């Protein structure tokens, strides 16, 4: 991919100091291409099902997501791995996976959770809610198409590079480093198979490339403005982890009585879990 700063290539009249198309105008044009801001404003809730496959690794799963006005809950059962869940209520995101357990998200992870599940597709319609700045940093040629790279910067300084097709204005991909307790993983998500739903132009297929692995997600169900169960959005409170004081949990959620009760419940649950075999020790 050769970077080409073509000052004259921009369709928009405004340019930034580097002579590249103005980011705000590009993003606004992208929103129009995706159906217009009014369509997204009219979206109050949705439910989606997405088939996830991880190529030759043989891993598959179905992700189900409920979203309502910024609150959300998403779950995916992956055979051999277990249940992976994320959610957010009142702007307080959380996650639950077989490695790290239930935990409240903060910092960069919380920021990423917010924008990744944003109502608006590919960041463009709601970029101002999640990022403090947008700047066009390049116009490139990719497979014969002119692609504008818009770098979005969050309040914590996290950066996402959103690529827009200059001709169609539709999003092509975005790149970022996924934060997790284990470290940052570089990732790029490619958007494909755009289809119009309720006036919104939506990619039904996304390919996530993390350099080591590729995950293909294909949307199989998408329902808008239906009823949602608000009880799904809150962080689960029945596990030890959710009430453990300290890094893992929002301090405001800690209640000593609840903590004690939940720990007792968790211990009871663990004891009742399919018991390991009791046996005589030793390999001999």
């Amino acid at each position, binding site marked *: 991919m050769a970077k080409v700063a073509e000052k004259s290539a921009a369709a928009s009249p405004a340019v930034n100091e580097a002579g590249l198309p103005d980011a705000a105008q590009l993003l606004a044009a992208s929103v129009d291409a995706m159906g217009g801001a009014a369509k997204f404003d009219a979206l109050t809730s*949705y439910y*989606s099902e*997405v088939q*996830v496959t991880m190529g*030759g*690794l*043989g*891993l598959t799963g179905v992700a189900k*997501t409920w*979203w309502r006005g910024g609150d959300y809950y998403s779950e*995916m059962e*992956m*055979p*051999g*791995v277990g249940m*992976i869940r994320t959610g957010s209520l009142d702007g307080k995101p959380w996650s639950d*996976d*077989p*490695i*790290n*357990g239930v*935990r409240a998200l903060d910092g960069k992870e919380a920021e*990423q959770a917010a924008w*990744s*599940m944003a*109502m*608006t597709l*590919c960041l463009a319609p709601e970029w101002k809610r999640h990022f403090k700045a947008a700047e066009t940093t390049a116009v490139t040629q990719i497979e014969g198409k002119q692609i504008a790279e818009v770098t979005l910067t969050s309040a914590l300084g996290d950066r996402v590079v959103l690529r827009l097709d200059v001709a169609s204005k539709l999003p092509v991909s975005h790149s970022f480093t*996924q*934060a*997790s307790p*284990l*470290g940052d*993983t570089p990732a790029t*998500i490619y958007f494909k198979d755009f289809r119009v739903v309720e006036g919104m132009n*939506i*990619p039904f297929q*996304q*390919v*996530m490339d993390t*350099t*080591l*692995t590729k995950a293909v*997600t294909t949307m199989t169900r*998408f329902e808008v403005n239906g009823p949602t169960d608000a009880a799904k959005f809150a962080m689960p409170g029945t596990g*030890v982890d959710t009430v*453990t*004081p300290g*890094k893992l949990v929002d301090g405001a959620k800690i209640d000593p009585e609840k903590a004690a009760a939940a720990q007792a419940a968790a211990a009871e649950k663990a*004891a*009742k879990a*399919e*018991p*390991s*075999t*009791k*046996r005589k*020790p030793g*390999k*001999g």
Partner: protein
Amino acid sequence: MRTRGALGLASLTPLVLWVACGGAPPAAEPAPAPAPVTPIAVVPPKAACPSWAGLDVKSLPPLPVTSYTATFEQVWRIVQEKHFDPTLGCQDWPALRLEFGGRLVDAKDPAEAYATMNALLATLKQSHFKVVAPGGAVESEASGPARAPVHVRMIEGQLVVVDAALGGVDSGVPCGAVLVAIDGKPVAEIVRKIEATALRPDEVAFQAMWAVEAALRGAPGATRSLRFLDPRKKDREVTREVTCVIPDGEMVTIGNLRDIPTTVTHTMIPGTKIGHLAFNYWMLPMVERVRGAMADLRAQGMTGLVLDLRGNPGGVGAMSIPVARLLLTKPGSLGKLQFRDFAQEFNVAADPAAFTGPVIVLVDEGTASTSEIFAAGLRDLERARVFGSRPSAGAALPSLVEALESGALLQYVVGDYHSSRGAAAEGDGVRPDVLVPETRADFIAGRDPVLEAAVKALAASEQPDAVLQPPASGPAPGEGRP
């Protein structure tokens, strides 16, 4: 708005990292024999080594066309693209492509072709490299999901039966018996073959164990003819037909790895408050069973824990985090994974309710990969001591198992591992803090000297003023390799 399904996966990259060796059976049976694990004695300076990361593969000359060339090219290419070291150990990877790709012309059958591909991978001199033909049938005619119900280890240079039963089925072969032949094939031949390729004595023991395990496999109900020295009959040679049985345990499938029999066992050592916990793989669905075992032991008043990882070849590396969390009241790292383009850390969050009593981890030559990462990591955090009769397998590189277009399975290394204090388990393995000699006589007598030593140490730590301190690194004073 639908990014989250994929986005969540990015943070879960460790889920797909398979850190197992030897006993980690790809979908096809039998389990592939472990790749040779040899320390690279001389590594040329990296600065002098060309990186193959930016190689234009379209500029490479074509290989002679055979039935296996496409698979070979895919194997070669995946390693070139995904290995954590873009110099591939400072090897001329394009030249090796020509050399080994050219050899495919001489391959008479799939077995020879896949042997050639594995020979290419063996040039990397690392664990966790293996390509298995579709169906895996080329490895052994005796393939099958069942096996003769005995477990064999190399003790004092002999292949000794250390477990006489499997899944509740008694083999009739006594503990302490020396295995002489399987279906008429002398096991000495297996050992000689391994000795010819392995560089370290401990590696011979590791590979011999897995080679014998593979030879003991078969279809359910099939029989294996075992010839052995019977200690009950003054070591007279005895031949016994033993029926293959399906290993017990809850079957777990993850991706291309199917029907892995997983077991979690626990007990309180009689007459003590010392718990014994063992599990045979690291698979995420086992975590709840491990938690349940710990809860049961703690409910019984456990004061010290023996975590028995002998014979555990690894599995999904990420499982080490929730298990470590059962033992850590302070946050810590089990070590660092370095990939080509990024790094990750086995960060374990604290659990104030974690078990705080002393912990001893048991290892043997069959302790590999995630088990080694866990043992090394926990020791570096000064949370456990390591007891064993010899170092662990020394096969601790994160890998992926990928289905190729031909249906073959490729396991390949993607990362490098170092403990939080910088120790590399690959090659040398995890050296026990306390080495406990094992003899054949121990097994004949039904003793487990390593476990006995651990229990004794934990019992001593319960005495007033006794402190069970792990050493800063390496063996404790006065304790060395046998």
